[in-house]
């Protein structure tokens, strides 16, 4: 019932921010036929009268006291950064040139 084309997969890859080669896109599209048909079985029993479960614990709005506790120093927080400058993360250009 379900199938995805190479272009469908390319669109999903763009949404997921993953560059993919043409070969990867074609392979994934062919694997998805099998996988989607297998997972679509959930629809056989998922009737309107069944409530969804998003999480095993019935928790909501868990709070702890708002107390200052030791946390990372700027050096520690930046220790894994690919690039940093003046105690900040240095990232590639986000806005266009004119901005």
């Amino acid at each position, binding site marked *: 019932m379900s199938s995805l084309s190479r272009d469908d997969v390319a669109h999903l*890859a763009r*949404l*997921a921010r993953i560059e993919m080669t043409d070969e990867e896109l074609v392979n994934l599209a062919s694997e998805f036929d099998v996988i989607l048909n297998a997972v679509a079985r959930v629809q056989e029993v998922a009737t309107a009268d069944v409530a969804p479960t998003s999480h095993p614990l019935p928790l909501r709005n868990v709070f702890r006291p708002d107390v200052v506790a030791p946390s990372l120093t700027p050096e520690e927080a930046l220790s*894994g950064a690919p690039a940093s400058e003046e105690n900040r993360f240095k990232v590639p250009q986000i806005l266009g040139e004119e901005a």
Partner: protein
Amino acid sequence: MIKKSAHEMSQALAGGEITSVQLTQQHLNRIASVDTDVHAFLHVDAEGALAQAASIDAARSRGEKLGPLAGIPLALKDVMTQKGIPTTAGSKMLEGWRPPYDSTVVTNLKSAGIVILGKTNMDEFAMGSSTENSAYGPTHNPWDLSRIPGGSGGGSAAALAAFEAPLAIGTDTGGSIRQPAAVTGTVGVKPTYGGVSRYGLIAFSSSLDQAGPCARTVLDTALLHEAIAGHDPRDSTSINAPVPAVVQAAKSGDVKGMKIGVVKELNGDGYQAGVRSRFEESLELLAKAGAEIVEVSCPNFEYALAAYYLIAPSECSSNLARFDAMRYGLRVGDESGASAESVMNLTRDIGFGREVKRRIILGTYALSSGYYDAYYGSAQKVRTLITQDFEKAFTHADVLVSPTCPTTAFKIGEKSNDPLAMYLNDIATIPVNMAGIGGMSLPCGLAPEDSLPVGFQIMSPAMQDQRMYLVGAALEAALLAQWGAPLLSQAPVMGGAQ
């Protein structure tokens, strides 16, 4: 000493027969002699482990009161952060990353005086059932080096089976503790969801992920369970209630009058003959020990695998969005004029392996508008039905049991090009994660046709984890009486005499 249980090592430490430094050194020597073949470890922290061992020895000689596992070495799955120690989650995305903080599990291990030897191999971001998806090469099963050690926590399980460590930490999203335990002849427990903190556990599927203890005996597993479990304010899904009395249960092993429910749907077609026969024999042993064996039916379990492969990829597509090449981890293509988006796209192409990409794309699809109700929404409903099946079954039985996996360890490479066949490995372990209850796997013998370990799974209701330890201890004792020596004594000898 390395082939003893952690409990026996602990007695030797307390009795002054050996120091923690000596015990740690013996394990480091063992790793040096066998890990080129097994490849259980991604990083060995010899210096840190010996320093930690020396401080425990010093505390002991000062007469300080120490916990039951103080001075015992442990192998840590590379998905848990440990301050200053390389943590990769089996991915190129995190190659060389040294976390600036300890996970709560590591904090608890350190305060229990447990010595962390190093980080163990795993399927990338815990996605897999064979450890073949590690970006750093597969781990080999000590029972047969051409076979998989299970996954995702294959490194932790193989380290135990190869006597490289008596204790290990795993994480279990759909069976990643229990399936590796089953195929390596070791013990592994997925505690009740929320029983052990997830703070510092690199997230795969947050509503399913659970860290837990791995060892070679039920008692050692219980001792480690108690050391790492408990409420953590840093994990909002951590349960604020006393830890179940798992050590007491593992010491008792009294199953007289307990009702053990055999799940009809988790047996039969698709299960290897030798797996079924060892499972049936174990049921007879439990009946002899005084338990009552009943059959229960969980008709919606047949949809669990399908629901899992929608829920886990959906949550992973969201969780792994954090790997954006900006704050930590890999960054590729950051040349002058390159946009953040192109850097992100290139980095995620190069940093993620095939299975991780497959699941991110599947999750992105399942969550996209127009398909959400049909896929993710329906999977959430199946989750409700599975939980209801468990609730009903637990009105007829105190624990439920099944084989842990349909087959024994398969060959490396055998299923790596067939994702669906690979996913079927987890058919008996996934329902436990969907409902958030507890699950244990312990070895119940070798399959006659291939002489490889078979796992016996015990499932207990939420926050009744002690029940699986009661049954596990009873079965372990009965099997040991039959075998005369632990199952692992039948594994091939590695690394010469020790």
